[in-house]
Every structure is written in C-alpha cells, then in structure tokens.
C-alpha cells in the first residue's frame, strides 16, 4: 500500500514529530509531557514512516538497533542515580545544577532519568514493531 503522498509527507512528519517528542520530553517537568509520552510520540513518528516507506527504509532512518536504544535508555536512567551514589546520599536523590542559560534553566538528574525513559520507551516500541514487521515479511 505504497502511497507517494504519504511517503513524501512522512519524511517531513517524521522530523516534525521527532522535534515535538523532544519538546514534550523537555517541557515535561513543568507542563504536560515527559519521557513516557515523548518516547511514545517519537516511536509513533517512526511507525508512521515505516507504514509509508516499509520496514527497510524505517530501519535505515532509525540507524541504531532498537535493542541498543533500550540499553542506552536503561543505562542513562541508572546513570542518573550515580551522583547520589557517589555523594553517599540515599539512592536516586536528585541533584540540580543551575546553568543560567535561558529556556533550559536548571539541569538535574531527574532530567537525565527522564531522558533515559524517553530512549527506553522509544527503543521498546521500535523493537516490538520492527520485530513484528520483519516477521511479517519473512
């Protein structure tokens, strides 16, 4: 069910949706959004691209093996606990640094954790969709 309109549109939509997902992730601490939704939206973006252009193209666009994305996500989330570990605080105590840069403001370990969730959810969803799609082809 290849459609040239969808295929063309999906390229732009992919970028837009990805930007939107990062936007959701970053503002999640103050407004609706966050790592879960961000990751899901990003995954949906790739899913759309996959529907329009097929699995091979989608895999090329993603570039990384989804399982690696899962690993990166999980490790990032765990890494956010390291500062508390080093400092001898209770596990996963948050640490914040004020960067002073406008729009970004304070940066802390919870943001890192959220980033981990983002990658993890993205990786998991892609992993499932890609595996199923590959199965379907073979």
């Amino acid at each position, binding site marked *: 069910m290849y459609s040239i309109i969808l295929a063309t549109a999906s390229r732009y939509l992919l970028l837009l949706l990805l930007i939107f997902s990062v936007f*959701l992730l970053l503002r*999640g*601490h*103050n*407004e*609706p*959004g*966050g*790592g*879960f*939704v961000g990751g*899901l*939206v990003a*995954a*949906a973006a790739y*899913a759309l691209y996959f*529907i329009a252009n097929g699995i091979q193209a989608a895999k090329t666009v993603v570039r990384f093996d*989804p*399982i690696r994305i*899962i690993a990166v*996500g*999980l490790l990032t*989330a*765990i890494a*956010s*606990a390291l500062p508390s570990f080093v400092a001898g605080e209770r*596990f*996963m105590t*948050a640490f*914040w640094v004020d960067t002073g840069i406008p729009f970004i403001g*304070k940066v*802390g370990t*919870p*943001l890192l*954790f*959220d980033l*981990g*969730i983002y990658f*993890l*959810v993205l*990786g*998991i*969803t892609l*992993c*499932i*969709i890609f*595996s*199923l*799609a*590959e*199965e*379907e082809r073979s």
Partner: protein
Amino acid sequence: MLILLAIGYCASALAPLLYKRFRENFGWITVTFPLFMFFGFLSRYPQIAAGEVIRESVPWVPSLGINASFLLDGLSLSFVLIITLIGAAVFLYAGAYMKRYAETGRFYVYIGIFMTSMLGLVLSDNMLLMFVFWELTGISSFLLIGFNHHKESSRKAALQALLVTGGGGLALLVGIILLYRVTGSFEISSFYDMNGVITTHVLYPAITVLVLVAAFTKSAQFPFHFWLPNAMEAPTPVSAYLHSATMVKAGVYLIARMNHEIGGTPLWQDTVLVAGASTMVLSALLAFKQTDLKKLLAYSTLSVLGTLVMLLGIGSKLAIKAFFIYLIAHSLYKGALFLVAGTLDHETGTRDAAELGGLRKRMPLTTLTAALASLSMMGIIPLVGFIGKETVYKSILELEYWGMFLIAAAVLANAFVVMVTLFVGFKPFWGETMETPRQPHEAPLKMLLGPALLAALGLLFGLLPNFFIATMLEQSVLSILSETLSLKITIWQGFNLVLLLSFLTLLIGGALYLIRSKMSEKVVRMTLPAFMRPSAWYEATLRGVLWFATVQTRLVQNGYLRNYIIVIVLTTVSLASLALYRSAGEIGFAPDFSITFYEGALVFIILVSTLLLVNSRSRLKSIVALGALGFSIGIIFVIYGAPDLGLTTFAIETLNVILFVLVLYKLPGFLKLSRSSNRGRDALIALSVGVLMTFTVLAASSFELSSGLKQYFAETSVPGGKGRNVVNVILVDFRAIDTLGEITVLAVAALGVVALLNLRSDGGGR
C-alpha cells in the same frame, strides 16, 4: 569441635582431587583423616575418665535458641571412638575394594560427609543442630546406598531408606519443637534436670512417641526394619560402616541420650522394651531364609539392634552395662565380618553362602580374621562378645515379670545369630572347596588390615576388659543414668545359669545351622502374605501417595485456562463481597450523579464499543472498537485533570492499532467456539465481577479521603523537585525507583518479544 567438623567437610570435598592425584595409594591417605580424629578425641580420654564433661558453644541463631553447641561426655566419646576407629578400617579397605567402581572420588566425598555428620550427631548438645546432622547422615546414606545408581534396585532401596529415615527425622523435628515448648530450650544439657517437668507435661506422650519413632526408623526397629536389608545394595564398605556399625546406632544413641531426660516412665520403657524385643526375635527368624552373606549379616544386625534397644528398655544398671559392652563388641565384630564378606565377594565373585566353601587354604589370613570375629559374634570365651552376651543374659534374668519370656526370646535370637555366624564366618572357609565365578586369592593388605585390626581388638578387650572399657563404661553409664557405678568386668564367673544359657545358645545355633544346610530351597522361599509384611505396607503407602498426587494434579491442573480463571475470580468475588457486605453499614453511598452532555456521549461510546468488542466476529470492527474505547478513556482523563494520562493513552492507542494490524491481519476470523451453556455461565460470572467492582468503587469513593501525600506532593514539588508538573516530578524524582523498576520490566518484555520472534524453532515447540 566445630572446627574439627568443618575440617571434616572440607576434607570430604577435596577427596576427588586427591584421588586423581594419588589413585593407588589413596586408601592410605584417606585413612589419616579418621585416624587423626580418633587420636584427637582419644587425647580427651583422661579428662572424660576423670568425670569431666567438655562443652563448647558458638552462637548461631541466638534469638531462636539455636547454637552450635557440642557436648563430649562418656556416651558421646564412646560413639566417637567407634565411629572414627571403624571409619579408619573402612576407609583403608575401600581404597582397594572400590577400585572396580568408576566414581571412587565421589564415594569418598559421600562417606567423608557421612562420618563428619555422624560425629556431629553424637557430639551435638543443641537438639536442632543434632537434627541437622541427623538428616545429613540420612542424606549421605541415601547417596551411598544408591551409589550404583544405574541399578534400579539400588535406587529403590536408597529411596526407601531415605523416606523411612527421613520420615522419622521429621517426627524428631516435631518432637524437638514440642520439647522446646515444654522446656524453653534446645540444649540437651539444659534439660538434664527437668525429667520431672517433662514427664508430667501434657505433651509428654506426644514427645515420647515422636522421639521414639525417629529412633526406631533410624535404627530399623520393627515395624520400620525393612529398609535395612534392602540397603545392602550399597557397596560393602558402606554396609559395614553405615548399616551395621554407626548410622543405625544413631537411633540407639538418641534413646540412650534422652533416657535420663525424658525416660523412666512406663510409657517410655515399655515401648522401647517391646519394640526392641520384637525386633530382636523377628529379624533373627527372618535371617533363617537368607543365603546372601550380606543379607544374613543385615538380619543379624537387626537382631542386635533390637537387643540394644531392649536393654535400654530394661534400663537397669546391669542392662546399661550390658548395652555398652554389647554395643562395642558388636561394632567390632560386625564391622570385621562385613568387610570379610566384602572380601569374599571381591575375590570370588559371589556372595551366596551356599556357593562358598573351602577357602581357608587360599585365604589363610582372611580365614583367621573371620574366625576371630565369628567367635566374638557367637559369644565364645575369651572374646569381648562373650562378655557382652553374658551380661545381656544376666540383665534379663534380673527382670521379674518378663524375665522368663525374654530370656527364651534372647536365647532363640542369639541362636539364630550363631547360625548366621556359622554361615558367614566358617562355611566359606572350611569344608570342601567349591567352584566360584572368580579364582580367589588372598586379599590385598589394605583389605586385610582393617578387619584384622577390628577382630584383634575384640580379642584384646575380651582379655583385658578392665583396661579401657570399664572406665569408658562408668562415664557412659553416668551419661545415661546419671548414677555413678563402679564396674568391674570379669570374664569368667564360674559355672552358673548364664553360662549354661550360653551353651544352650551355641547348641541350638549349631542345630539350626545343620537343619538349614539340609533344608530344601522350597521351604526357604516361603514368604509371609503381603498384608503381614511392613515392607508391603510401605509400598502400598507409596503407591497411595503417588496415586493421590496424580489424581489431585489432574483435578487441579486440568489444562483449561478458563477453569483456573473461574476459580480465582469466584474466590475473589465471594471474599470481597463478604467484606463489602460486612462493612455495608459504614458505607454511605452518596455518589455524584451529575453529568454533562459530552460526558454522556463518552460513556455512550465506551458502552457501545465494549458491547461491540464482546460480540463482534469481525477483526476490523474489534480493532476499531478497541481504539474508540481507548480514546474515550483518554478524553475522560483529560477532562478530569490528567492531561498527561490523556496524552499517553492517545499515543499508546495509536501504536496499539499498528500492532494489531500487524498481527491480526493474517489471522482467521473468530469463531464461536464455546457452547451456549458455557456462555451463559461465563456471562453470570462476569456479571458478578462487574457488579462487585461497581460497588467497590462506589464504596471506596464514599469514604473521606485523608491522604497526606496529596498535600505533600503539592507543597514540595517546586521547592524539592524543581518542577511544576507534579505528576512528572513524582515519576522521575519522588518515586524514581518505582519508575526505574517499571522501565526495567518494559525492557524485559521487549527482550521477550524479540526472543519469541527471532528464536526460530522447527515447529515442535522446543
């Protein structure tokens, strides 16, 4: 002592390595281990002889009263010396004997573990510690009986021994716990003076029965005797060590150890007396049927164990004295004879007494050893067995009521033992030479030294009874009766009734031997009807348990998913309904009925799509219904102040549709599989769940919500979490560990998906 035992276990573990290294001389190396223990404990002899009791205690679980505490007194020292001495003989012997077995290293591991555990058993002061060692000896015995695990009969015998003694072990555990309830302690030494308290307690009969069941199973007393002859499947050194000299004496030890603390009552004494006496007689009679050397010895061992238990049941000073002399004498001669039987088996290739004869020229040293041990076993002057038997007779004659009956029984039993001895100790060596499967040679030194040493000790103790045994005896009797008793053992006491009885025993024994030799095989093959044999009871029980397990499993795990679900659901519904019903009075149902137009529309969509989902047979319709349902719920979330939930739901529903399209696209349409009666039943069950949940929600929301958390999060989100989206702050900061766990679960689910899809199988499901 704790350290010694730890060394024992470590050394056992090292055995296979050492065996690989030394092989030929391995027997000589292993023998150092029991010898080391033997002399180590022998060095404590002067202290014990002086009446001292050595105690050691290391806290283990102090809050539960469990300590690694040990007690060395006359009783335990006697057992320790027997265990280590015979251990040394057996270890050395096995070095040569076990050559034809493949896994010699493993054999030494098992037997090393056994010896250490047995030492632990007799040294333990804490009853729970003793229980642990008790079970360890049972397990090592299981492994050793089943050593020829490729033989079915071995496996069966091993399992039987494990089940019988293990069952007894459980009884012991319960007994110990009851005893703890009464005395408040697990330390044997601490309820030394509590006999009065224990024997008058309500739980006393239960304790007695449980402890005695444990002792009777371990020491193979009637009606639990049947496992011991079957245990002869084990390699001969094992039979010599575990199943005649040591492990089967653990039960006897337990009775002796507890005698002072919980004994002395008619219940205790009579039970012990009757069980012991009946075992003594019955197993002696059963020995009549056997021709296998090891089985003959096994039945005579049973008879001796019965005698020992009976002596404890008599409980007089003289009986206890007899108990000790008999115990030591038996360990020495029976160990030696078992090893001789093993040698015969090893050299000739047969263990059938009927096929052996005239070996004295080929194996002169073995013949001598066998003769010495046999004389002791028959109770002929001047060996230690003679003193043993004399004292046994004397102590029985002291009895008033049972005396005449018991003395007849004892003479009869001993006559059978004499018969067994003639078959095992003399017949193979004297008389005409018989053809055997293998050409016999004199046994190697390793296989001679052990039995010869044991037999020689039998002679030595017989000649010099007061040199060593008497002192040990005094202290041991002290441990059992807590009465001091000066003992002088004299071997020759003149011509009296007891001597006459001894002669009578020998005479009957000889006659039995002649009758048995002439008897046709037909009579021998006679068996009791099944219902009279305890081993048949055992098998029936085992079959019953297996049958019950099968039926029960088939009933509970029937393979129908919905039956499991129905059970779970109905249980939940009935319990929860009961709880709701009981608290019905406190619930004030005052829900909010107000509703706006678009809420009504959402509810309508949800209801319709649910109905569609339940009834639809079309895949496409179902997926659409599922999507509509999800999005409606998402909108409800948004309306009621949860935009994050709404967003997530929308994203997930979108992905869900993709998933379903990918999977369901290629599947057949649904069929109506269930019968309509089933559908009706399921609808009823489902309805009950629905009603219950509705009421639960209503009930739960009728209570005043007093969660401090809401306020806490509201106030600390910005100052503490640096975020204004409270939900997200909870997720990534306040409850981040939860979230971490949850995303880990997700990662695992994804890996599962990949594994399921990518690991191709060839259709067999393997």
